[in-house]
């Protein structure tokens, strides 16, 4: 079914009787050519591109819970390509370009909104680092602007310019960055994949891998054994748990990141703003809620909930940066489990088990990567070769010394 304004009008006039399920609820087949483990954003996008762009068939996505229940269902919805390192920036810029045509491509309004992201700087050294990063972005074909204090003030006059512990000196602006409706992204990919014959199987948890002579032959699930020629795992948050079933240890720790939304408010904040002297970033959703976050709690966790000190820390950061939000109320705080990798960058690679591939380690940046991650992972699954923008995301980069460490903090996941 094609979605359009005309269709909405026609259905409204005829009692909405014509709307069809967004996707089927198929029973799992005994065998597939491709199994994607994980029906989150990356898994669904992988299945979509595998079917659509690479023309593959006999594909299933296995999701232990409901579609989109991974971190795509609980994030702060930011999309951007403002990275420094050559291992990252071309990949995220590829993702940004996919975002820019995504809704028309999969015929679903995911509310991709390029209202910009403004990173603030508070020291000369931060501005120097922004200049280096902004230039790296431009060199990779992305957009970037370095703003001085007055340009920042013109964009966001409500920030604390006059009375701050760490005065605002300027900012790095990426106008093409912004936000997208996170669930809509999952649903758009799911619907697009389903339309192309992909079986999206919910409530189907993978409980083991069947490996014969170093090669994958299928997966054990709570709904029985399913054979597969190629298996791609995209279960960020649970990567270590799942890959342990294939005998692998990963350069990943699981950490909880809390995120926050305020009660709905009339339009207040134009785009995404990040504080450079504390843990706080914020945007405002189309419904009016301030969507904000800060740092991870910092300890290994699979509990999907955090603790009070981080909530206070984030609120302190917000109040320091924009004291006019004080009388807004926090509506809800939630926690998601992040695959925090040892260099802060992801992994899209084959594994020592032939036919078994891994997409993991997204830290708290996985949402913006969804289109490129799906595309690059599909490319790898379909062709056996890494996509050109994702060729640095290898598993062996740690042992070989080619880490992609944007923050320069080394092998300590909770600092990335």
């Amino acid at each position, binding site marked *: 079914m094609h*979605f*359009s304004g005309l269709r909405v009008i026609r259905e409204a006039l005829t009692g909405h009787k014509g709307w*069809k399920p967004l996707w089927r609820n198929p029973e799992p087949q005994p065998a597939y050519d491709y199994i994607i483990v994980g029906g989150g954003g990356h898994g669904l996008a992988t299945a979509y591109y595998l079917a659509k762009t690479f023309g593959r068939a006999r594909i299933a996505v296995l999701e232990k819970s409901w579609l989109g229940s991974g971190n795509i269902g609980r994030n702060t919805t930011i999309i951007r390509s403002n990275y420094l390192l050559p291992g990252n920036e071309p990949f995220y810029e590829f993702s940004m370009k996919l975002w820019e045509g995504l809704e028309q491509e999969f015929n679903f309004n995911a509310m991709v909104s390029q209202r910009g992201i403004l990173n603030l700087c508070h020291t000369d050294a931060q501005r120097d680092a922004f200049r280096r990063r902004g230039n790296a972005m431009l060199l990779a074909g992305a957009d970037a602007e370095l703003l001085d204090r007055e340009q920042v003030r013109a964009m966001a006059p409500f920030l604390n310019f006059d009375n701050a512990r760490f005065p605002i000196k300027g900012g790095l602006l990426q106008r093409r960055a912004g936000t997208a409706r996170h669930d809509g992204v999952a649903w758009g990919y799911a619907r697009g994949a389903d339309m192309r014959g992909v079986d999206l199987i919910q409530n189907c948890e993978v409980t083991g891998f069947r490996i014969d002579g170093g090669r994958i032959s299928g997966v054990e699930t709570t709904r029985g054994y399913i054979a597969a020629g190629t298996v791609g795992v995209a279960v960020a948050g649970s990567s270590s748990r799942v890959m342990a079933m294939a005998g692998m240890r990963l350069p990943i720790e699981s950490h909880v990141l809390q995120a926050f939304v305020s009660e709905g408010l009339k339009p207040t904040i134009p785009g995404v703003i990040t504080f450079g002297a504390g843990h706080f970033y914020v945007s405002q959703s*189309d419904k009016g809620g301030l969507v904000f976050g800060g740092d991870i709690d910092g300890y290994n966790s699979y509990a999907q909930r955090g603790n009070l000190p981080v909530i206070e820390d984030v609120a*302190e950061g917000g109040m320091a940066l924009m004291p006019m939000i004080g*009388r807004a109320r926090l509506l809800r*705080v939630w926690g998601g489990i992040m695959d925090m990798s040892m260099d802060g960058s992801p992994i899209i690679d084959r594994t020592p088990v032939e036919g078994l591939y891994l997409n993991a380690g997204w830290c708290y940046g996985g949402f913006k990567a969804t289109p490129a991650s799906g595309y690059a992972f599909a490319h790898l699954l379909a062709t056996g070769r890494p996509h050109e923008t994702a060729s640095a995301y290898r598993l062996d980069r740690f042992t070989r010394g*080619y880490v992609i460490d944007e923050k320069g903090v080394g092998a300590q996941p909770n600092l990335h």
Partner: protein
Amino acid sequence: MTRLTGGLIDRARNLRFTFDGRTYAGHPGDTLASALLANGVRLMGRSFKYHRPRGVFSAGSEEPNALVELRSGARKEPNSRATVAELYDGLEAASQNHVGPLGFDLLAVNDLFSSFFAAGFYYKTFMWPRAFWEKLYEPAIRRAAGLGSLSMQPDPDAYDKGFLHCDLLVIGGGAAGLSAALTASRAGARVILADEDFRLGGRLLAESHLLDDAPATEWVAQAEAELAALPNVRILCRTTVIGAFDHGVYGAVERVADHLPEPGRQVRQTLWRITASRAVLAAGAIERHIPFRNNDRPGIMLAGAMRAYANRWAASPARRVAIFTNNDDGHRTALDLAAKGIEVAAVIDSRSDAQAQGHYRLVHGMVCDAKGRLGLRGVQIDSDGRREWLDCGALGVAGGWNPNVHLASHHRGRPVWDAALQAFVPGEGGPCGLIAAGAAKGQGSTAAALRSGAGAAVEALAQLGIEARSAELPAAEDAPAGLRPLWHVPGKGRAWVDFQNDVTVKDIKLAHQENMRPVEHLKRWTTLGMATDQGKTANVTALAVMSELTGKPIPETGTTIFRPPYSGVSLSVLGGGDTGPHFRPRRLTPTHEWARAQGAVFVEVGPWVRAQYFPRPGETHWRQTVDREVLATRAGVGICDVTTLGKVDVQGADAGEFLDRIYANAMKSLKVGMVRYGLMLREDGMAWDDGTCARLAEDHYVTTTTTAQAGPVYRQMEFARQCLWPELDVQLISTTDAWAQIAVAGPNARRLLERIVDGFDLSNEAFPFMACAGLMVCGGLRARLFRISFSGELAYEIAVPARYGQALVERLMEKGADLGATPYGTEALGVMRIEKGHAAGNELNGQTTAQMLGLGRMVSSKKDGIGAVMSRREGLAAETRVLVGLQPVDPAQPVLAGMHLFAEGAEHRTETDQGWITSACHSPHVGSSIGLGFLADGGTRMGETVIAANPLQGQKVALRVVPPHFIDPEGGRLRD
């Protein structure tokens, strides 16, 4: 006016308030909602999506409809629930989310087109043309969305944080909470009783029935008096427990002054972090409604709320009301209202065998429609197919009660379905040590709640080893509810499930039709439960409707859990009031006051505040000042406070061995009385931090770190000492704050120091470059002297106990007046270190290697130093970028940190990028801008011209590659 008799309001006093500019009067004890009802105001707000006219729906913090902007100016508080806003004299409130007057909202046009705005419609349209989303569609949606608006001014009030500890935290001060608190306090336990209301009693305040033949309020008053008199009890009224966190930690917000016109000298709110050994969740229950067509008309509300308004607040939404119920509780409302003189037009009971419990008309049937857009005028009743319109100004709806399981699910423990109660009750996996009681556990009758609260306290205290006996409890009603589920009234038209977000039964049907059936899909597709009440009044009903559609029982359809906070919490109180300049503490150097007296300009360096430069009269630009400071230092002597560098004192027989493992280079071989530059790697082989390591005695070293890494380096050293090599005899202490350290640099440095040391030989022979010693200065002051140089000049750093730092600087300035002694700040410090080619934070950014810094040979392979093994990995060894100096071919051209480097003639792309400029400054010595940077194969490219590109600012500059020492490359100045 619909003010009734009785109630817990103080009629002796009148409070004036305004709503949408009109002035009304109420009494102490009123909420904004009760006072408006008493003044005959039913229309209080507009819904989120369709802008439907709405009235008050509940009498508590779960209110989805009656949201207002409270107060004005900088104190304006959007989305305030009128049902919990305590009335004070002069209160100002305004309705929100409408264009034009509340009674004639232009955006109500949305309601006419509501069939186009069915669940999920926006996912299906607004895609063409693409550019219209940001330009047209989204701005329109954003303007229509949102609820209230912020003042956009900083919050003028003060806030506080506090910590409390107790044996038992009782959450909720109703029947169950009071009996729990009485039971626990009498056993001697430390008790905190928290209730969100401004008055203890909970539902007891809203009911007319008796406890021990007296009004319930009398028992409440006795209990409160007893608790208030006990030293082991703390009562926190106006306090919402917002979340259950790990290990018995609860967050609570006390609204200290929200009931006052202005906080005055008090804080407005306090965030309490309560650490409780055990907790009793006695948060009560929230009534649920029964959706029917147009069930959102102003005047339709929960029956329990209607009863509360009548009994507690002596207010009624109308003189003639009706009740729609599926259980006996609805009849209580009818009886109580009738007793207050309100005309009960009918009780419509969906149970065919229901009996009237008083003198009112009973109809067996259902309410199937309502009329009165801005205020209810009547409801249509369906009794076995016979339809009839019944005139009434208000309708109470009683659909049963949902236990308030909110906090019990904060640890993601799922509530379980109790088929007998037809409700979810707290299940397994709740917060450790939290015991539910009373209506929150499904023990809803007054007698059961009292018993359950006392029992929970006894159980909780027993777990702590405190023996407690249930408080003797008054006799109370113990009637069953007799509920027979009715989840919604079937029929055409829109029946609201989630009022604020305008989610109707039809929307749920559509979600089912489109296969958005898992409860999380349902919520996300329809926005059910996402409004300010977080689904407290909607979620269970929606689940039941979905269950009917799927044919699966409710618990199989799904459960919903709640996330903190229990109800909305101001960001001000979570931030705790430390805003503006108080966001983080300031660390001041020992010479801060002196520097301020010199007119220094200060700069934030992490937590430190350091002197950046010292302008003199007549200097109009910071560059003038900095150039002068640099030249004066290089010509005479400069003085700079470098206390902020981290200092770690290392002592013990194995101190040398320990430092050999900490640093990449050798330290065991360092001679006593000498200093060595030290480079630390991370265990992953990357360069991490640098500093000096001075050996004061065989078993005593003093090391320094960079300012930024002082904490992390000390932590790492303790890690190495305790976790890696506990067998070594070594002790550490951070002495960063103990010693004031002053750099004295320049050709006159020795002459100046000679004037303050107590008989210490500073000659080059006795105290050469890289020497160190403990000594006395200024006539008996203990000091340490290090002959080290960051500036490239003859230089020393002298350390004295921190409290003498300012006196030392003053003495140096005084004694050095004729030597040209000049204070310099961090800017001049930076210029001189760039001129000398010393790496600092911009070069040691955690992404660079010893080899890149030109220090590769320092990494010893003869010992097991941290990071040495990993520094030899292929990827690190293959790195060709090294630190070089860069000087513009045309001296007028700028050099800026963050420019990228390219070969001449090359295209400027990621693939051709050859490096970047790390640090840059204007060098008064060279007479142009200069820079340091990492350049591919830089070591072999001296003299070559490269292009520094800064496309961000439209610059391209030709630079000559030079060695990274712009002054004194041979180092003669240091050593003479």
